[in-house]
């Protein structure tokens, strides 16, 4: 993921001694290692069949095996991947358009720049609720369709929430994530974009060539990193698919929680195992993003 390290001096500056540095880092490391690391480790142990209180039992891959061979798992995995990938791609594409438009829009359109940032801070849950009110069969859009004479009853309205193609979920994510990606792109564009574009113009690049050969390479690392963060989030989030998804198949996080909270205690380790699988997929996405960022920095692009 994007590192905030502008790193002008960080490489050369003489820091305090190692003990001093360790003390500065220790509190944060302790909290993260214990709570985050501990949580994941205990999750793995429980998923491997270890039940604290009952003493250390023999660890086995049984629960992971049951999860991974469950035909529903493949369905869920596919759906989750689909939702995350489509949301990310749509949001990334629209963000490029939005970033270019906002970048060229004079600063005096302050209200627009402000309003554009609103979705950043709005909880996913709120926008999911609003999406239900707008897109459900009794929602605003359906009422508009009736008023326009397109349909007569709610049942004629196409399913846009709890639907097969997860349209409601994807729309919610796209609404929420566009500002996030766009602002990352705008930061890059405003730093380096303008001057390089001027260079491109005097070097005879036309509008499309400037976009293709200057703007796109400039924003690409940030776009990649932001997109992977969005992918990671949408892959592992619970609220939106829980509210707007179908009961079958469920996305992985919903599936995981359903098993975890099942009355049948045997289902619990499987829920935890699913949670670990989600974390693994997401961690892989992050590692890819780190590698991308590092490569970008090697090429001299400050993210």
């Amino acid at each position, binding site marked *: *993921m994007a590192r*905030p390290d502008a790193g002008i001096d960080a490489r050369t500056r003489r820091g305090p001694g190692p003990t001093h540095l360790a003390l500065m*880092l220790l509190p944060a*490391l302790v909290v993260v290692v214990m*709570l985050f690391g501990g949580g994941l480790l205990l999750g793995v142990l429980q998923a491997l069949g270890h039940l*604290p209180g009952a003493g250390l039992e023999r660890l086995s891959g049984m629960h992971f095996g049951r999860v991974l061979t469950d035909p529903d798992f493949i369905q869920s995995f596919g759906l989750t991947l689909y939702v995350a990938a489509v949301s990310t791609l749509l949001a990334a594409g629209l963000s490029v358009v939005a970033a270019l438009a906002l970048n060229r829009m004079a600063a005096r359109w*302050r209200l627009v720049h402000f*309003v554009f940032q609103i979705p950043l801070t709005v909880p996913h849950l709120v926008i999911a609720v609003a999406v239900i009110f707008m897109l459900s069969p009794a929602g605003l859009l359906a009422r508009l369709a009736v008023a326009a004479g397109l349909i007569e009853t709610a049942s004629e309205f196409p399913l846009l929430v709890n639907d097969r193609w997860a349209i409601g979920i994807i729309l919610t994510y796209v609404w929420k994530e566009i500002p996030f990606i766009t602002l990352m792109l705008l930061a890059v564009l405003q730093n380096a974009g303008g001057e390089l574009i001027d260079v491109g113009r005097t070097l005879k690049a036309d509008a499309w060539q400037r976009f293709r050969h200057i703007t796109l390479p400039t924003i690409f690392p940030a776009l990649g990193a932001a997109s992977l963060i969005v992918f990671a989030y949408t892959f592992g989030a619970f609220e939106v698919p829980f509210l707007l998804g179908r009961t079958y198949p469920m996305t992985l996080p919903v599936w995981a929680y359903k098993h975890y909270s099942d009355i049948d205690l045997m289902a619990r380790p499987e829920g935890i195992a699913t949670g670990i699988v989600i974390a693994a997929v997401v961690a892989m996405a992050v590692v890819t993003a780190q590698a991308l960022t590092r490569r970008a920095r090697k090429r001299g692009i400050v993210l």
Partner: protein
Amino acid sequence: MSRPKAVLVALTVLAAVGLPFATLVIWSLADRWFFPGLWPQAWGLRAWSYVVTTAGGQVITALWQSVAVAFVTAVVAVLVALPAARALGLYSFRGKDAISVLLTLPIIVPPLSVAMGLHLWFIRLDLAESFIGVVAVHLTFCLPYAVFVLWGVFSNYNPDFESQARSLGASRWRVWLRVMLPMILPGVIVAGLFAFLLSWSQYLSTLIIGGGRLITLPVLLFSLMGSGDRPVAAAVSIVFVLPALVALLFSARHLGGKSLAGVR
């Protein structure tokens, strides 16, 4: 950009962002709004009076619960993050890459995976269904997030100002208070605000660790959505979104429109 184009972009942005909120506001003010009416058949403040008064102040209690959890989480996160972010932002040292991965990974690994693992342990420590337990699980992602924001702040911060102040005779404490703090304050506020919001928006980890005993606003909102009372759900949604808007207004106004890039 030409004016008509700019107006078009402006209208698109305003409509896309505004429409969901308009929907929520109208629903919260509708006493009766049967399909397929395009407009409520009866307006009223039933939902809002429910929010303020009924059910033993259920909403108000949840509101305070949410504020308390998010506030404590944000304060602890920023205090713990500050020294770590300073170390990461200003100096290079062995193992920095590994530490940076470790500290930023929790921002993206879903809290769901962590909370499920922590739950049994917290039960044994008697932290489950407790305020501290919920704050602790929120810290797993709010703290790394604060580190991430403050790291950026510190990498744009020049500690030579501190040396300068020291050489002019200021004590170490005064340097921190009078030199460092004013320079990083906007970043500290952003980090705090958004750690607050991150905790504020959290549903599943609160539910798992809080076990349904600690009712925060999102937990309440989920049960309301289940009950199907749309006007009340809309009103609670609006209450739920208010701190986010206030935070955004505040940062736009007092932090000089400091870019929120990298914030989610």
